C-alpha cells in the first residue's frame, strides 16, 4: 500500500486547528485554563516546536526504551545489587523514588492541560506525547522500587511519600502545585517544561545516571536514562511559548514565570540532589561536585538558552550562583540532624576523607559547616547520640517550605527575610523566595507551612513525636544514619572527651 511520505503530511497534522461553530472560542479555550494572554489564535498557530515526532515513531522508540530498562532490571535482579550496594547509594534511590515517582504521574496532568487547553496546536500535539511520557515515568519509577519493599518499608515511600504530610512532601507538593497543577496551559509550558525540566531534570537525571553507573547500579542508571531522553524532548515545549509571548509584548510576564520556576526548582534540588551528589554517593564514585555539575549543566546552559530566547538572566542569578557554595550544605545538615523526619537513611558523608574532599571542592568548608559537624562528631564519639537528634523544629520558609539555612561557624550569616501581610508575619529564606511570594500574594498567602500547622494545633501532641505522627512516619520508616555512624570512627583519636 502506498504510504504518503512523512514530510508531506506531518506539518498539516501537527498543526490541525478548527473554528468552533457550536461554542465560542472563549468557551472552548477558557482564559483561565488556556492562558492565551490576549494573543490571537492565529498567532498561537505559529507555535513551532523544535522536536517533531509522529505517533508511530513515538511508540516504536518508547517500546525500545521500556524493553531496554525492564530487561536490565530483570537480568540484574538475580544479582541482588541492592543487597550489597553502599547504604548511601540505597538512600539515594529511596529518596529519589519518594520525591519523584508520584510527581511524574502529576506531571502527566500538567501535560494533559496543555494537550487540551493550549491554543497552539503544535503544543497540544507535543503535550499528548508528554502526557504519555510522564505516565510511563510514574509507572516505571513505582514498579522498580516495588521489588525492594521486601527489603525495607522505606521503599514503599516511592508511592506513599506524596500522600503524606512529611515536610519534604509538603515542599515538593507546594512547588509542583504551583508550576503544573494550578497554572494555565501557557504557564505550564514555561514553568514546568522550560523552568523545571530543561534545567533541573538534567540535574537529577543526568547527574544521577552518571553516579549510578559509577556506583555499579546499572538498573537505576538505565531507568533514569530512559526517563531523561523523554524529558529532553518534551522539555522543549516552553521555548516556542516564550518566543510568542516575547514577540507579542509580554516579555515581562514571560520573564517572571521563568524566574519564579527557576528559583523554586533550584531550592527543591538543593535539598534533594545536593546532598545526594556531595554526601550520599560514596566518595570513590562521585563524578563531579554538586556545584561543578550545577555550573556546567544548569548555570551555563540556562544563560545560553535565556539569551537565545531574548530573555535576561533572572535578577537573582548572582544570589543563586553564590548559593551553590551554601544552600545544599545547609539542607544536608538539616536533613541529617532531623533524620527521623525523612523516609530514607541520610548518609553523613563527613568522614575524614569526605571532609578532605569537601574542603577541596568548597574551600572553607571546615571552618563553617565543619564546625557544626565537629560538635556532632564529638557527641557521637562520646556516646551522646541524643545530642545529634532534634528536640524542636527548624523554622520553615513560607515559599520553599524548606528550612531557613545559612552559613554557620566562622562565616555565620543566616538572614531571615520577613514580610508582614494582613497581620501575619511571613518568614523567607532569601530575597528571591520573598520576591516569588510578592509576585502573587493572593496565590500563596493562605498556605500553612509546617510551623504554622504546629502552632495552630493541627499537630498533636505538640512535640516532635506528634510531628512524626503527623508525617506518617512509623519506627521502621524513620531515617537513621545510613552507615550506623561508622564515618565518625575516623575521628576517635581527636575526639574531645566530654
Amino acid at each position: 500500500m502506498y504510504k504518503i511520505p512523512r514530510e508531506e503530511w506531518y506539518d498539516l497534522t501537527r498543526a490541525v486547528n478548527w473554528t468552533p461553530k457550536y461554542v465560542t472560542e472563549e468557551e472552548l479555550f477558557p482564559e483561565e485554563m488556556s492562558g492565551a494572554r490576549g494573543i490571537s489564535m492565529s498567532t498561537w498557530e505559529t507555535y513551532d516546536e523544535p522536536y517533531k515526532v509522529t505517533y508511530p515513531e513515538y511508540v516504536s522508540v518508547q517500546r525500545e526504551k521500556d524493553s531496554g530498562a525492564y530487561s536490565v532490571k530483570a537480568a540484574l535482579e538475580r544479582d541482588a545489587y541492592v543487597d550489597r550496594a553502599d547504604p548511601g547509594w540505597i538512600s539515594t534511590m529511596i529518596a529519589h523514588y519518594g520525591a519523584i515517582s508520584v510527581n511524574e504521574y502529576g506531571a502527566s496532568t500538567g501535560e494533559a492541560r496543555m494537550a487540551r487547553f493550549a491554543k497552539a496546536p503544535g503544543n497540544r500535539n507535543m503535550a499528548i506525547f508528554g502526557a504519555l511520557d510522564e505516565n510511563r515515568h510514574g509507572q516505571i519509577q513505582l514498579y522498580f522500587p516495588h521489588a525492594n519493599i521486601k527489603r525495607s518499608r522505606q521503599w514503599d515511600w516511592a508511592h506513599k511519600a506524596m500522600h503524606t504530610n512529611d515536610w519534604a512532601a509538603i515542599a515538593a507538593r507546594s512547588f509542583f502545585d504551583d508550576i503544573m497543577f494550578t497554572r494555565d496551559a501557557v504557564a505550564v509550558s514555561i514553568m514546568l517544561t522550560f523552568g523545571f525540566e530543561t534545567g533541573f531534570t538534567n540535574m537529577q537525571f543526568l547527574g544521577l545516571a552518571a553516579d549510578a553507573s559509577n556506583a555499579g547500579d546499572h538498573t537505576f542508571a538505565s531507568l533514569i536514562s530512559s526517563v531523561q531522553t523523554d524529558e529532553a524532548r518534551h522539555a522543549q515545549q516552553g521555548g516556542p511559548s516564550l518566543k510568542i509571548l516575547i514577540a507579542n509584548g509580554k516579555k515581562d510576564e514571560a520573564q517572571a514565570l521563568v524566574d519564579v520556576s527557576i528559583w523554586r526548582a533550584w531550592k527543591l534540588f538543593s535539598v534533594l540532589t545536593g546532598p545526594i551528589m556531595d554526601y550520599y554517593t560514596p566518595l570513590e564514585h562521585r563524578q563531579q561536585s554538586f556545584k561543578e555539575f550545577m555550573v556546567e549543566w544548569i548555570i551555563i546552559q540556562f544563560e545560553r538558552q535565556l539569551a537565545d530566547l531574548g530573555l535576561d538572566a533572572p535578577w537573582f542569578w548572582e544570589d543563586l550562583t553564590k548559593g551553590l557554595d551554601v544552600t545544599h550544605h545547609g539542607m544536608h545538615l538539616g536533613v541529617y540532624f532531623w533524620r527521623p523526619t525523612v523516609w530514607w537513611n541520610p548518609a553523613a558523608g563527613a568522614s575524614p576523607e569526605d571532609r578532605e574532599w569537601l574542603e577541596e571542592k568548597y574551600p572553607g568548608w571546615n571552618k563553617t559547616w565543619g564546625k557544626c559537624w565537629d560538635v556532632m562528631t564529638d557527641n557521637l564519639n562520646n556516646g551522646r547520640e541524643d545530642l545529634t537528634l532534634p528536640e524542636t523544629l527548624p523554622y520553615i520558609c513560607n515559599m520553599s517550605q524548606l528550612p531557613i539555612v545559612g552559613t554557620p561557624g566562622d562565616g555565620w550569616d543566616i538572614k531571615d527575610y520577613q514580610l508582614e501581610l494582613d497581620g501575619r508575619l511571613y518568614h523567607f529564606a532569601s530575597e528571591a523566595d520573598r520576591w516569588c511570594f510578592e509576585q502573587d500574594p493572593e496565590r500563596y498567602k493562605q498556605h500553612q507551612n509546617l510551623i504554622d500547622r504546629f502552632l495552630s494545633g493541627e499537630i498533636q501532641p505538640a512535640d516532635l513525636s506528634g510531628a512524626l505522627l503527623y508525617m506518617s512516619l512509623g519506627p521502621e520508616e524513620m531515617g537513621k544514619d545510613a552507615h550506623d555512624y561508622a564515618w565518625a570512627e575516623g575521628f576517635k583519636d581527636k575526639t574531645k572527651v566530654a
Partner: protein
Amino acid sequence: MAVLPICANFEGDFVLQLVSVDTDDTMDQVAEKCAHHSVGRRVAPQPQKVMRVRLHGSNENYPRGMKVSDASWRATETVDVTFADQ
C-alpha cells in the same frame, strides 16, 4: 504569663529554629532556651562568655534582665542570640 513562639537564630548555627518562650522570661532565660537547641549540638560551648539577645538584624542587645513582655515581639519574631564578653 503566656507562651510565645519565636524564631531563634543562634550564633554559629546553620538554621533558624522554633523555640517556645514565656512572656515573663528575661532575655537571659530566652538565650538559655535558644541555646538548648544549638549549643552542644552543633555549636561549641563558650563557657567564658555570656549570651545576649537582640532583634534579628539589630546591632543593639536587649538588657539581660529585660522581660519578653516588654520587648513588643510579634508571634514568631526572629531574634539573634550571640556570645559576648558581658
